[in-house]
């Protein structure tokens, strides 16, 4: 699955996207896996209330299932307009 990072999440993790093979059943489980990887991931995912997630390009939430999903994106609250 492709995992994308935007804005300061991208900056903290240090890359815009990566390919991750994971057995995580939900977004929340994927986040738990990522947090354990390295300090920069732990820092990016420290406060989930400051993060938003999109699953296959649709806004979603952290208990969304990942089965069959091709793309997950993490980012701060949007500031368009």
């Amino acid at each position, binding site marked *: 699955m492709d995992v994308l990072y*935007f804005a*300061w999440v991208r900056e903290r993790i240090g890359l815009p996207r990566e390919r991750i093979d994971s057995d995580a059943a939900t977004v929340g489980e994927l986040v738990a896996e990522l947090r354990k990887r390295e300090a920069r991931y732990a820092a990016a995912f420290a406060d989930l209330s400051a993060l938003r997630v*999109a699953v296959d390009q649709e806004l979603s939430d952290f208990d969304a299932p990942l089965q069959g999903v091709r793309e997950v994106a993490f*980012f701060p609250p*949007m*500031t*368009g*307009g």
Partner: protein
Amino acid sequence: MRVVVQQEPFDLGAEAAAFAAGHRDMGAIVTFTGVVRDLPETPITAMEIEHYPGMTEAALTAMAQDAGSRFGLGDVLVIHRFGRMAPGEMIMMVATAAPHRKDAFDAAQFLMDYLKSRAPFWKREISADGSVWVASKDEDEAALSRWKG
């Protein structure tokens, strides 16, 4: 309905005139234009907007369709830029056409409220000291609540 996501500037005058010319059966046309404020006292030299290619277009299209059916619009236009903009440059515009004024105004405000907090754009202010991500505002999130249900 037209949704445009682009890096280049757009021409508000040409867009507004073309949009209005296409809707002679609509009595009310509203446009909203967002501008990078050019304030003499701030050290901001540019605004940079990051977006999520693919999702951005889909999200704006869904919002425009939702506005169209909720408010019985004759047409909707959404243009939103990404990339670097100087103070004074236009960031985005929406236009709505409806039979009567209340729906045209409501639809434009609905679109703006959703755009602010639900379209995947992230603003960063650039100054000589570096750059700062613009924080989302509680009031923008609160503005959405009036459209619920």
